[in-house]
């Protein structure tokens, strides 16, 4: 286990290095002069030159990359052109909202995946479920988001369709409002936060549910045909027990991998969903940075998200090995 973790951490470092290199390359091919954009268009040329010198922009590229990496290791992602804040601080500010959304979406997606998989398993002969899943898997995320917003918020008014809370000016110790409401003894805040979470999380969860559900149902169909399932039912065990104790665990590996893969695809969807539901998280921050050509901010967020994704992949592998003792770490 320890050697596995060591190996994986080395792999993680390598991948992060590659990512940082890509980000660095992208940053250096940007035609705009970062010193100029930081100083502002009206600043005198001497200021800009001084800034270039200070930022190390006159150094050879390799030296620049070295100092870029060393700054990264200290948690310095650079400065945003739009907000004029260190990007790391912006990430810390908007990150919790996004993380809350991601967790909610993963939970909902997993729950929906189970429902879809069971529907497919029990209604195998009716094509309805299959076509339904195919349709759900073909919806562009912005259509899901727009339809949910149009009907459940605008038409029916069941759920709020923008922002994180009804009340303004709330801040809590963790930034996860559902948790903060409970910590501060204000359950109405948690409730409001949950209601606001519902629509964006649902929109995000649809693609997760479809791919994980598909993979789960095909894994289950496969596992339930294995000879050891027959052994178990030959022992006179109940169908429900067999499904839970012998079926699910053996079918877990592929859907888990799919869940991890979905995190990688989540980022693009986050931008859209946060934009549609005005969710003040990293996605919306990135969309706004796009709009103002604030590339350092976009790339900084990309780097953070990439690291997050790689961590998730690692967790998935650990979960897979827990589910199946044959996968040695």
């Amino acid at each position, binding site marked *: 286990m320890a050697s596995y973790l060591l190996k994986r951490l080395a792999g993680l470092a390598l991948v992060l290095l590659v990512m940082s290199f890509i980000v660095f390359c*992208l940053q250096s091919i940007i035609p705009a002069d970062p010193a100029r954009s930081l100083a502002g268009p009206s600043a005198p040329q001497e200021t800009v030159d001084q800034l270039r010198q200070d930022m190390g922009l006159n150094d050879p590229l390799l030296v620049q990359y070295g100092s870029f990496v060393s700054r990264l290791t200290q948690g310095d992602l650079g400065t945003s052109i739009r907000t004029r804040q260190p990007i790391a601080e912006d990430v810390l500010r908007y990150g919790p909202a996004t993380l809350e959304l991601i967790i909610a979406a993963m939970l909902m997606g997993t729950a929906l995946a189970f429902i879809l998989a069971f529907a497919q398993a029990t209604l195998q002969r009716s*094509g309805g479920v299959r076509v339904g899943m195919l349709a759900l898997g073909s919806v*562009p995320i912005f259509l899901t988001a727009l339809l949910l917003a149009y009907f459940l918020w605008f038409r029916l008014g069941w759920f709020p369709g923008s922002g994180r809370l009804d009340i303004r000016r709330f801040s809590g110790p963790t930034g996860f409002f559902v948790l903060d409401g409970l910590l501060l003894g204000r359950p109405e805040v948690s409730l409001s936060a949950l209601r606001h979470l519902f629509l964006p999380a649902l929109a995000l969860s649809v693609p997760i549910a479809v791919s994980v559900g598909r993979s789960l149902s095909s894994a289950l169909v496969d596992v339930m045909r294995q000879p050891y399932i027959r052994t178990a039912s030959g022992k006179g065990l109940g169908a429900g027990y067999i499904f839970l104790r012998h079926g699910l665990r053996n079918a877990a590996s592929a859907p888990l991998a799919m869940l991890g893969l979905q995190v990688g695809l989540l980022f693009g969807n986050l*931008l859209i969903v946060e934009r549609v539901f005005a969710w003040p998280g990293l996605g919306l921050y990135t969309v706004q940075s796009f709009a103002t050509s604030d590339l350092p901010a976009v790339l900084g967020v990309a780097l953070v998200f990439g690291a997050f994704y790689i961590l998730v992949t690692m967790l998935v592998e650990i979960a897979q090995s827990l589910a199946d003792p044959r996968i040695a770490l």
Partner: protein
Amino acid sequence: MSVMTSGPITSQNTGGWLRRIGWLERVGLLGVLAVTCLAVFGPLIAPFDPMLRVADAYLPPGATHLFGTDEIGRDLFSRVLLGVRYTWLPGLAVIGIALVIGSAVGVFAGMMGGWVDALFQRIVELFLVLPSTLIAISVVAALGPGLLNTMIAITIFWWPWYARMTRDEVRRIRSRPHVEAARIAGVSDMRLMLRYLLPGTVPALLIAATLDVANIILTLSLMSFLGLGLPAPAPELGAMTARSIDSLTTYWWLPILPAIVIFVMSVCANLAGDGIRSALRGA
């Protein structure tokens, strides 16, 4: 992204394959043909000029303007027809290029084996472990928005899937007794690759590629939604939705209808992919 299923290659009895395709999948295959025709000839049959003001702004869908008109009175239906071209053809192109690059690299690595294969696998793994959409978005953001840049960025992150799939298929088929048997029978290397190996990789690749058309369309429209595609007046479907998103509560058809067209294209592609899979695999 790609659906990684590999199973035994079943017989390709002539005639039998058509019967294995369900009616829904046939509709999907027809739909794919129809969409391709629309993408090529659509602008010819468009009732109005997609770039000009032809009526009042914000007309709801009706008989003259099937999809209504937009904020400056352009015919939405004509714009959507052109939009199909801007989404569908780049999608096919990306798949095609990724397939060519991927299968060439995959066959090479699979045939060579040894350190070439090992190196290739490490590189592909790196590509696959990186969050691809994210980097593609960053790449386009850095290179500057535009359809070509978008296509390049997506292709860069798409071919490794095909390369790995081809490589795995080549390795799988190569280790099967029938290839060994052919080698023992004295079949020349070139003939072995072309007649005994490559045909075996085709079904898996074809299935993955067809099913991926839908994924590419969704990714392309996502990029277009984020403003990374063609610049403003061009009627890209994703961008049309994005620009009119704030009109959702007042003029719903502006954001919703282009999105629904994307949905229909993607459903057709998925159904067609399923159809091809059942034709080739008998599943």
